[in-house]
């Protein structure tokens, strides 16, 4: 596998051309095409399966790369994910979305990679994940802004250093939801399908992941302990809010 870096793409925040309706129609058309390809692949059409994988190779790589933050590891995970999908195609429910299934395989493999890299056991226990991040956890979302210029953010060496450290500290559970939401732009239901949990759990994880990130960055920026509050409350609250 060869990876050659290309120039940076335009920001993903830009709305799709044609607006939300056009984007929804495009998504539905893509789903229909996926379903047809899955059907053919299950019937033994290998070209159809290769087409399916090619459709999602970039997105699968993005997820793995965002999770692992290492292109070589992400590349390995992608290859493993493609083979795993091939070997498990017969068990795939044709009515489900193919890309959420692929994401699920990729996320699970990425977590395995993280686990090996960290040399420790990683669990999807929310209370544990909250503590695992080790950040001071505010009781609510912070109204404090970091106050940087979005266009200059990547040129701010100090900010990037703190950001990298903050992301590295995130538990795999929290990193997963942030990647799926903020990078891939998945809806809560899609995230729940990928992770295999309820929407309530997704919201809870997302909430705490964001709070922890804010707390790290504000503290790193010199905000001291302004956002530091007891972690124990948040852990209990997170458990209580799962649906």
């Amino acid at each position, binding site marked *: 596998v060869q990876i050659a870096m290309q120039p940076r793409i335009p920001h993903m925040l830009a709305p799709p051309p044609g607006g939300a309706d056009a984007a929804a129609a495009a998504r539905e058309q893509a789903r229909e095409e996926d379903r047809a390809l899955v059907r053919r692949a299950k019937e033994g059409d290998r070209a159809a399966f290769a087409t399916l994988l090619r459709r999602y190779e970039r997105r699968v790589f993005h997820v793995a790369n965002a999770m692992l933050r290492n292109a070589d590891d992400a590349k390995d995970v992608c290859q493993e994910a493609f083979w795993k999908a091939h070997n498990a195609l*017969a068990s795939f429910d044709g009515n489900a979305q193919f890309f959420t299934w692929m994401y699920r395989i990729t996320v699970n493999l990425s977590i395995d990679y993280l686990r090996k890299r960290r040399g420790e056991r990683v669990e999807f226990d929310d209370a544990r994940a909250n503590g695992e991040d080790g950040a001071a956890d505010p009781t609510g979302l912070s109204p404090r802004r970091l106050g940087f210029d979005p266009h200059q953010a990547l040129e701010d060496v100090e900010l990037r250093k703190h950001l990298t450290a903050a992301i590295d500290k995130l538990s795999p559970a929290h990193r997963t939801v942030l990647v799926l939401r903020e990078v891939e732009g998945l809806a809560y239901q899609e995230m729940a399908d990928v992770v295999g949990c309820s929407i309530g759990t997704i919201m809870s994880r997302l*909430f705490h992941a964001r709070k922890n990130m804010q707390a790290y960055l504000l503290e790193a920026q010199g905000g001291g302990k302004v956002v530091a509050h007891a972690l124990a409350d948040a852990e209990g609250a997170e458990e209580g809010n799962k649906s």
Partner: protein
Amino acid sequence: MKPETTNGISDELLQRYFDGELSPNERAQVEARLDGDARLKLDALGEMRVLFRAELSPETPALDFSSTFDAISHAPIVASVPAARRRRFLPMSAAGGLMAAAAALFLFLRPVAPTMNVQNAASVEMLEAEGTLASVFQIENGGEHATVIWNDATPSSQGEVP
């Protein structure tokens, strides 16, 4: 999630608003109550989103998985996948067990003279000594007694069970 509220808007609701997960009706209700603090929280969330996206999707690599796809397209599609990982089949152990059971059954059920007052009984015991498993069959047959000891494979010869 902590039920923190800003002007009647909980953080949970604010997060769902930020993520575009509210119905148009709910959205309008939130917008009607957005005050300075809630807006600051939304700004802070937006700031995080920009940072996170910038950091985690900074470059678009040109990927070439063609060799993988090529290999996959030449591999046969797997027809079915086991629902769960199963214990590895242990042919030696299974064959040994079957033969031992057959021997015990033969001794226990073999025909006897009809005039004899027969009282049959059998018991099976598993023993392990120095890593070797053995089945001990005690067979009572109308006063006769037989003991069959069947040596099973040692655990080390059975391979690792996943």
